């Protein structure tokens, strides 16, 4: 969506145009949901937070500074909603959310060669990668996780991430670098039933499901 087009939608939504509001929701809901889901690992929480963020944003259009992108503002609201939720309900914190991923199960019990035979076509690679990455993300610190998600998934520049998280750019980079390294290490160790296999001769990692017999022996 062009910036001018978005600005027009924002102006119309601010005036109560429901079609414009709907267009903004359709445009940004997936991004906000993904962002929050990556932070918390729970779809239900991501949906709740996204809904609340939109409601707050559309109700508070008068506070929107049009010199910024609507999406940036929306993400800021969503982040605030999420952090407030974490404070109120510790059960929704990232640590608890990790439980559903069975993180760490079976680590180190299999080697790359053990699972190479289970490699699947690209579409399954996507699913494996997605699941494994989410599990591995939940093992990072909150700051590492958020910088990774905003930079790699949302394509935000470091400067914007620094503003969004209220951190110096150098600190953001540090979180980003350490987060990447940790992410890789966790993936290679195996997250849940998925392991990443590195081979210097290929474009890797390749994600593979740990064979059931090995998973059962964990």
């Amino acid at each position, binding site marked *: 969506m062009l910036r001018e087009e978005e600005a027009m939608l924002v102006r119309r939504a*601010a005036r109560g145009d429901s079609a414009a509001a709907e267009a903004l929701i359709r445009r940004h809901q997936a991004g906000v949901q993904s962002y929050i889901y990556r932070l918390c690992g729970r779809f239900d929480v991501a949906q709740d937070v996204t809904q609340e963020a939109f409601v707050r944003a559309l109700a508070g259009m008068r506070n929107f500074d049009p010199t910024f992108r609507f999406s940036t503002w929306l993400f800021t609201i969503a982040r605030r909603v999420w952090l407030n939720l974490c404070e109120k309900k510790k059960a929704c914190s990232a640590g608890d959310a990790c439980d559903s991923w069975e993180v760490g199960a079976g680590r180190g019990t299999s080697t790359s060669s053990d699972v190479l035979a289970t490699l699947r076509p690209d579409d399954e690679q996507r699913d494996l990668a997605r699941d494994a990455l989410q599990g591995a993300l939940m093992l990072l610190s909150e700051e590492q996780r958020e910088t990774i998600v905003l930079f790699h998934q949302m394509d935000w520049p470091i400067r914007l991430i620094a503003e969004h998280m209220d951190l110096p750019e150098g600190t953001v980079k540090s979180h980003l670098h350490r987060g990447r*390294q940790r992410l890789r290490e966790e993936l290679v160790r195996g997250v849940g039933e998925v392991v990443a296999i*590195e081979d210097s001769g290929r474009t890797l990692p390749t994600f593979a499901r740990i064979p059931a017999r090995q998973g059962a022996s964990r």
Partner: protein
Amino acid sequence: MTLRLRDDGAPTPRRDTGAEAISRAEARALMHAALDGEIPHDAPLLRRVLRSDASLRAEYQALRSIDQALKIPPRTPDITERVLAALPEVPSRHAWIGPAVGGLAASIAVGAIGTLVLLGLRPAPVSHGLEGGAPIALASSASTIEPMLAAPWVQEFPEQAAWYPGGAVTTAAASSGSAPGSDAAASPGGVSESPARSVTPSRVFVADASGVDGAAARPTDRGAMPSFQVARAGGVVHNPGPSRTPVAMAANDPMLGMLGGTGANIASGTTQRRDSVRFVVTGWYDSEGLLVPMSGREGGRRAQGAATGSRAIGETRR
């Protein structure tokens, strides 16, 4: 120039007897700089580092693959409807009437009757927080309406006078079918004999009619509401007047209220039929034909509603 990787992280001279020495930590910093977008992935030094060390090459490829994998979005459901359903709880959603009404306003602005008949209007949601409409008589004589009439932000649509009065609109509505809840087309007499023929409405508002079951006022009430005219969106432009069968208005029908016409515009049903009518003005159309909710920032500040703070036009009881 050859590149020699050292296992320790200690700083060393960059050049060492013709070969460039670089620590693993420095090599990783290079890799992350590329991943951060600060240097290109094919930067010469990075290329030499990766060429010289298979494990670093694998690590770098892995990090790039993770970058790509992270771009695969989670499968998130479409929650647009859910969010929209939650919006009525928000004050600024008072006037979520939709693009059709916006289109109508645009039609009014240009006097495009032909466009009007194609519009399908959907019922507006209940106007939250504005349920307590002031009585019409009170509203018209008190501070609710006067500021509206004088408000500089009210968009004038003088062209409307050219087509609004009379049967043209009614005929168009009848030929195109009425909007949901609209029965003007079936109303005997329509508006062709409406006293609105001479009206020069100058301002267009959007209103939710709340608790409405009929027309607005008896002829004798015109004095109390001299310049308010109700046009039902969707084709029912005018109620038919005292000698006609009143047009039933469903609760929460979107309405267009026009202020600034002659005193004959608040046409009525009969005393037998009408007992309670309330109109709540929730917004207006600006020069771009965009809906501006009066409950929003501008409305809240500028409507200068009655002492109650209500933006209600009013309510009449018989």
